[in-house]
């Protein structure tokens, strides 16, 4: 019996180690989540402001037209997939990629009908393993990303739309609701939704002078706006990643605690059985002598 006890004891030890690790990861994720949320909040003034300026140009000029605001017949699509670099975040990435694959199968007949841009190792590995061609990828984006980290992939994705290699661009990412809920989302980014700009902001937007022409300004401003949308999606996905990891790790910790309790019970039972057996043996031996 003593051998069984030792085995149980070893199991308890290793479960305790695991628990320590998951506990630590949970706390790390919690603090990173807070930072990611702050970053998402800090990026908001920029995108809000940019949107306001775009809106004021779009509404002021009677006939301001721009290719990025117009939808054209769709021949090819592009998807910008944002995943995390690391796993251990529950079903975060797999749910997202499942959604992506479903959409791809539903909408397209062959691989020639779409392009893929990927941020994050998980998504890249997944797609490459399934023999998809990834046009550009960004791997190793830090936990507190800066705009410069994704600038090149974002502008590549926007450029492709501008020069007509595809007619629509979707961002696929995890929308952050709260630490427990993240929703895999497929959002159309380009062409930009003109109706979003047409509703007037509450503050009376002054009539601006433009230097140079409003169209020329839109030329520079709209790609920038689109890139900013990518950046804020990335920040949101980061927040989702840490939220999901925190939840996953906290349930792992909980499971480990439960397992330890069970194992301790088994251990005590085994210990008791061993003692009882020993006593019985001694008593039996003593009885045999007398």
């Amino acid at each position, binding site marked *: 019996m003593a051998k069984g006890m030792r085995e149980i004891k070893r199991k308890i030890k290793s479960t305790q180690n695991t628990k320590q690790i998951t506990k630590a990861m949970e706390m790390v994720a919690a603090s990173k989540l807070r930072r990611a949320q702050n*970053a998402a909040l*800090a*990026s908001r*003034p*920029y*995108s809000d*402001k*940019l949107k306001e*300026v775009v809106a*004021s*140009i779009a509404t002021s000029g009677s006939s301001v037209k721009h290719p990025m605001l117009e939808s054209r017949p769709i021949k090819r699509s592009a998807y910008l997939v944002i995943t995390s670099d690391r796993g251990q975040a529950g079903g975060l990435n797999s749910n997202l990629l499942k959604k992506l694959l479903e959409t791809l199968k539903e909408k397209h007949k062959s691989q020639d009908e779409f392009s893929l841009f990927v941020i994050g190792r998980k998504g890249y590995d997944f797609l490459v393993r399934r023999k998809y061609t990834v046009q550009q990828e960004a791997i190793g984006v830090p936990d507190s990303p*800066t*705009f*410069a980290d994704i*600038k090149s992939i974002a502008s590549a994705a926007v450029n492709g739309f501008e020069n007509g290699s595809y007619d629509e661009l979707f961002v696929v990412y995890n929308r952050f609701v709260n630490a427990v809920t993240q929703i895999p989302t497929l959002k159309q980014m380009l062409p930009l939704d003109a109706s979003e700009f047409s509703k007037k902001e509450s503050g009376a937007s*002054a*009539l*601006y*002078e*433009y*230097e*140079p022409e409003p169209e020329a*300004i839109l030329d*520079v*401003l709209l790609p*920038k706006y689109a890139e*900013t949308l990518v*950046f*804020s999606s990335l920040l949101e996905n980061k927040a989702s990643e840490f939220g999901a990891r925190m939840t996953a790790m906290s349930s792992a910790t909980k499971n480990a605690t439960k397992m330890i309790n069970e194992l301790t019970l088994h251990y005590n039972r085994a210990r008791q059985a061993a003692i009882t057996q020993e006593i019985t043996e001694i008593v039996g031996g003593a009885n045999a002598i007398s």
Partner: protein
Amino acid sequence: MSTLRLEIVTPERIVYGEDVNMVVAHGVAGQLGILPHHVPLITPLKIAPLKVKKGNSEELIAVHGGFMEVRKDKVVILAEAAEQVADIDVSRANQAKERAEQRLAGKNDHLDHKRAELALQRAVTRIQTTGK
């Protein structure tokens, strides 16, 4: 002396937000000075140092492209990156300048050339901002 509110916003954070007396910026169409009660204006900016006058003191801020929106008593600059003097690493900027100059001197295709040119502008802007 009347003041106007200057805000410099990047995707990551608000770099600067203070009441100042005058802003001198490099727009794509030329240099322009903004005083309070300026006509509302929107213009893209060049990669160049931005001069801010506040009381008797002057301050330079490196602004890497972006936009300026001017309202009656407020100036908002949206840039992908902006740095105050204290945040600039001069030795790094010098290195970046040398690297960009080397790349420009060598024969290269069009895209690389353009990228190096922009890098050079950024480096020069950083150096100018700290230099004075």
